[in-house]
């Protein structure tokens, strides 16, 4: 598919960490994502609305967390076209403090290898405020 060099499947082992990245998001990031995605739900930028519906604070869009979480895998793959499938469960919201923002840590490990198909499954561990925020976050990639 691509002229660019990809990571080699035969050098990978189950459990190997292929990417490890930390991100800091702020309220500005949420407004930027709202505009870029078209998701203008006010719980992502208004404290009063978040409070009125019983949330602990303004939350990051789940889709923003999902979008950020895969970026280190894209960089490792070099070519984004190598991603075949990407799925997550939203298990815990990311509260974004007006002053401090929130940190999102991503560790990407090899979860499964299919040498015949030329594919790997990369499992993401995504944490914020010390807890896991995405469940079953898996990226299936082609390394042909």
């Amino acid at each position, binding site marked *: 598919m691509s*002229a*660019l060099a990809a990571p080699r499947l035969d050098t990978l082992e189950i459990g190997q960490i292929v990417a490890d990245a930390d991100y800091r998001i702020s309220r500005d990031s949420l407004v930027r994502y709202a505009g*870029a995605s078209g998701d203008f739900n006010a719980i992502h930028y208004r404290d009063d609305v978040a409070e009125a519906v019983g949330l602990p604070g303004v939350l990051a869009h789940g*889709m923003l967390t999902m979008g950020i979480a895969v970026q280190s895998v*894209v*960089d490792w793959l070099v070519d984004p*076209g190598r991603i075949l499938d990407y799925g997550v469960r939203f298990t815990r919201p990311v509260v974004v403090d007006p002053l401090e923002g929130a940190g999102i840590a991503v560790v990407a490990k090899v979860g499964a290898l299919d040498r015949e198909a030329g594919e790997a499954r990369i499992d993401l561990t995504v944490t914020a405020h010390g807890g896991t925020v995405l469940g079953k976050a898996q990226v299936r990639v082609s390394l042909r």
Partner: protein
Amino acid sequence: MNPELQGRVFAPTDPYLVGREKVREFARAVFATNPINHDPAAAAAAGYRDIVAPPTFAVVVQESTLAQLLAEPDAGIDFSRVVHGEQRFSYTRPIVAGDELTATLSVTSIKTLGGNAMVTAESSIVDETGSHVVTASSTLVVRGDA
């Protein structure tokens, strides 16, 4: 929520033309730094016609299909009770600037679990030639009255 929604297929959306600056805007918003997401020359060197959208960009096209679902008169979905439970993208190829994409929604599963309803909706996204690009699948949890 109405269990008869299961299996329902909606009308295709109006074509969505993927703009280069929209892709860049989305890429900046999700902290995408890969040159293939920003620079047409880098994308061309990798074999693409124009810059490539980040993996989750398909949600922008999918969004109008979810709006169809929530607006369906007999669906009985109260948007203020909807929580996004799961999301998945299955690609045939990545989205590239210049694509003209059409999405068709089908409701693949409805389950009830402890007073909550879980609806899984799949949006099949095709390009201007009718070729499959990506299927975006969302599971929405509709909280009960409790």
